[in-house]
């Protein structure tokens, strides 16, 4: 009796510790994610580039500043960075990070994941419109268009996973996939491609959007936050980085092998995430941004890939591909 109580209390402590580790991972790794992307771009441009932890310095610098608030704006402008930031952090708690465990694991948590991100996006959009700037209007209208068409792809992938694995939460789905046999790799790779395109759309990276552009008319995400400054801007930048990292973690979860211990799995996670950021940096250096009218076609690729993945899933379940 005593022994069992002790066991459960150590288990509780262990899961608390894991949760804290997960949250730390979620908050710190995004800085490095952006740092590695920038370093990669510097490498391709033949520069030495800023240190990998430069985004942390930027964050601290912004946090320590005051703010300028537009006279046009209303109360929305003051609360939206916080709400968007909170929604992204919360979404991060729903996905499995270290040791294949999510902080908040329950049935159908992927729906809450998608909808809480959408909630944050709702506020980001009206926050941008609140300034009455036509530039920020451009950004908001493009952002909402692109993320709207990217939405079904995510759900098709997740629904196929549910059909394939018979599990109903991120954690269980990934655990199942990590245990599975070779044919599932095809499905895994296809879904990784879909997630990667969603990452590029949601993170506003090349070829959808160029974060380093210098003309407001061509931007998407950067132009939405023209009027933010100080801590609000710090929240927005860090939030955007976390969002990209979340999708990178989802991709990494698809590629991780079955349970290999906390240390190995988190190291492997870091390696995969860095690899993804290097890929993003390389794409950004070698590929030009698409013309704005061609971006939807690029996003539709994600839907087509997810549909191919759905067919592969059908083949797997009913075609005897086991």
């Amino acid at each position, binding site marked *: 009796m005593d022994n069992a109580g002790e066991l459960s209390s150590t288990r509780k402590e262990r899961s608390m510790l894991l949760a804290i580790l997960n949250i730390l991972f979620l908050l710190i790794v995004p800085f490095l994610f952006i740092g590695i992307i920038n370093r990669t771009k510097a490498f391709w441009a033949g520069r030495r580039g800023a240190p990998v932890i430069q985004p942390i310095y930027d964050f601290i610098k912004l946090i320590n500043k005051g703010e*300028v*608030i537009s006279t046009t704006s*209303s109360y929305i402008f003051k609360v939206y960075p916080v709400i968007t930031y909170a929604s992204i952090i919360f979404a991060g708690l729903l996905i499995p990070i270290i040791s294949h465990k999510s902080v908040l694991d329950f*049935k159908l948590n992927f729906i809450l994941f998608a909808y809480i991100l959408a909630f944050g996006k709702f506020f980001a959009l009206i926050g941008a419109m609140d300034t009455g700037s*036509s530039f920020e209007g451009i950004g908001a209208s493009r952002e909402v268009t692109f993320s709207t068409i990217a939405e079904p792809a995510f*759900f098709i992938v997740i*629904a196929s996973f549910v*059909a394939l694995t018979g599990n109903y939460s991120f954690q269980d789905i990934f655990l199942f996939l990590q245990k599975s046999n070779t044919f599932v790799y095809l499905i895994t790779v296809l879904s990784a491609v879909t997630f990667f395109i969603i990452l590029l759309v949601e993170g506003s990276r090349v070829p959808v959007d160029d974060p380093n552009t210098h003309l407001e008319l061509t931007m998407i995400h950067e132009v939405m936050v023209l009027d933010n400054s100080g801590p609000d801007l710090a929240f927005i930048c860090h939030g955007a980085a976390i969002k990209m990292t979340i999708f990178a973690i989802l991709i990494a979860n698809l590629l991780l092998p079955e349970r290999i211990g906390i240390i190995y799995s988190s190291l492997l996670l870091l390696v995969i995430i860095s690899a993804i950021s290097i890929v993003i940096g390389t794409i950004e250096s070698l590929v030009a941004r698409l013309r704005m009218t061609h971006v939807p076609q690029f996003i539709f690729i994600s839907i087509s890939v997810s549909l191919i993945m759905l067919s592969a899933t059908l083949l797997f379940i009913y075609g005897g591909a086991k």
Partner: protein
Amino acid sequence: MIIFFLGISFILAGGFGALLINEKEKARCLAIFSGIGTFFILVPAIKVLVSGITITSTIKFTYPIGNVSLIIDPLSAFFLSLISIMSFIGIIYSIGYIKPYLHKRMAISSHYFFLSILVISMLLVCIVQNALAFLVVWEIMAISSFFLVIFESEKKEVIHAGINYIINMHIGLFILMVGFLILSINAGNVDFSSFKVLLNTNTSFTNTMFIIFFLGFGVKAGFFPVHTWLPRAHPAAPSHISGMMSGIMIKTGIYGILRILTLINKPSLTLSYFVLMISIISAVYGIIYAIRQNDIKKMLAYCSIENIGIIGIGIGIGMLGLSYNNNIVAIMGFSGSILHILNHSIFKGLLFYGAGFIYQKTHTKNMEHLGGLAKKMPAVSLLFLIGSIAISGLPPFNGFISEFIIYNGMFQSFLVRNPFILVTVIISVASLALVGAMALLCFTKAFSAIFLGNAKNTYTESINDMSPAMLVSMVVLAIFTLLIGLFPQYVFKLLINPVSVLVPSYHFSVESLNFVSTLSTLSWCIMAFIIIAGLIYLIRYLLLKQRSVYQYKTWDCGYQAGNNRMQYTSSSYADPFLSLTKPLVHNEVELTRIEGFFPQEASMKTHNHDVVEIYLLKPAFKGIKSLLNLFSWVQSGDTQLYIFYGLTSLVATLLWIMLAN
């Protein structure tokens, strides 16, 4: 049942009272009486809803109606509570809304009289079990709401919309009459319960009958392609009426469909796929057209079509569950759709009431002419924001919960190992997600065009004096949205009894118990999210407390001559997305281009047309008209000729009887 009729008579008394009393007090009179009436109606309704018992009663009429059996089962009880509470809130709102119309020789007496009649007829529709009596109250509902729609009858477009509405309603009524006629001739009885045997013998007969009823009730509910009256009638009606029509009256159509479903033990697969398909099309079509609108109320009307689509998707999933004998799928589908009925009436009421307030103060419904209202009317903007988030299906409000339950039903259906159901359901999952994303687009557009940025218009009136009646009714609705969003587990438990009417073999199973625990985890998570957001806001507050926060104009990229009309408008916001949907819509553009070195005049006008109206209804009506024109010689306008017709038919009948004998 007696208490129920006591409630009904109170509402009727309120209606008659409003006829007699002083103009200023009419609204208050009906509000007080309907408040008492609502209380009396809720007593049996809540009792049935909680305990799951069924109250029955019979009224004996003479020929041709015969005995009318009345029933309050949990399904009716749900609709009774919904209708009585929401119409009570609507009447409270109207106390404030009607004020500017007083003493302008408007037909306020008849307005309130017909309002009470509408409420009563909606309540009766939900309990009558006799086909003939049902059609009678159904027709009373259509006619009384017609008089409510044409309140501002001096306006031409209002009359136009009203006539369009009444014609549509009668097409629906006609289809229902056909359906009920076929059933009652075959059954030899007009009682609903006698149809039950008939509807469970021959599958193809059942399918045809269900599709007839789906069409007939669908006109009321606003399913694609019989939705075209909604975007006309809602903008024409005064806001409390549009809120009530969209919130509860169109739900009687859904009630009809559900009531027919209770008569069918096991709907066939074809029917389930049919309902699912129509619903998905309605949802996608409705929201795409909602995004295209710049008139607030028209946008909300199209949005009702979208939400009816979502409700229909839930019903379709429930029917799939029934036809595959999978109870949990059926339970989830029906609970999701019934909860969405409730949710939609709450947030749609909230949004229509908000729109009514904006219209009252600014005298425009065009979003392009508004803007900057968040600073002028912060309370309304916050309430409208809550409604917008809720209708986009986002947490922590109620719209998310019903969609979550429907999603759960969809994902549970994968356990039925069948490739067709898998593909269909995944398509529905993707469409529901797409519809949610488009609703987000639609309402970020609406909210920012109305409330944010700089005003594109100068507002003259003292813009923020809001009557307490309007404010209270909107705040109550907003609290409902939040409560359902935060405590879904208790709401789900309340849905057990109404759903068990539709899923007969439903007793509270392990799966639904598990789902209740999932919902309570969900509610904890949503609260955790609110706490996280609060903490971060606290951090921000503490950081900025000591620092300089100063105000400056919006970044204008160095351009000094900007003005308010250079902001992003609602149409420009939606344009990138709408350009992708071009094949689905019909846009008429009148364009005078800028030409030459010294351009003189340039203009652009766009007209949004409903594709269904242009390509389906117009040709159909044209065809009917030219067909009927062939007989126009019959109606010459000559009185002698008409007497001749009468005489001929009389003689013919006599001859026929004589020969038959």
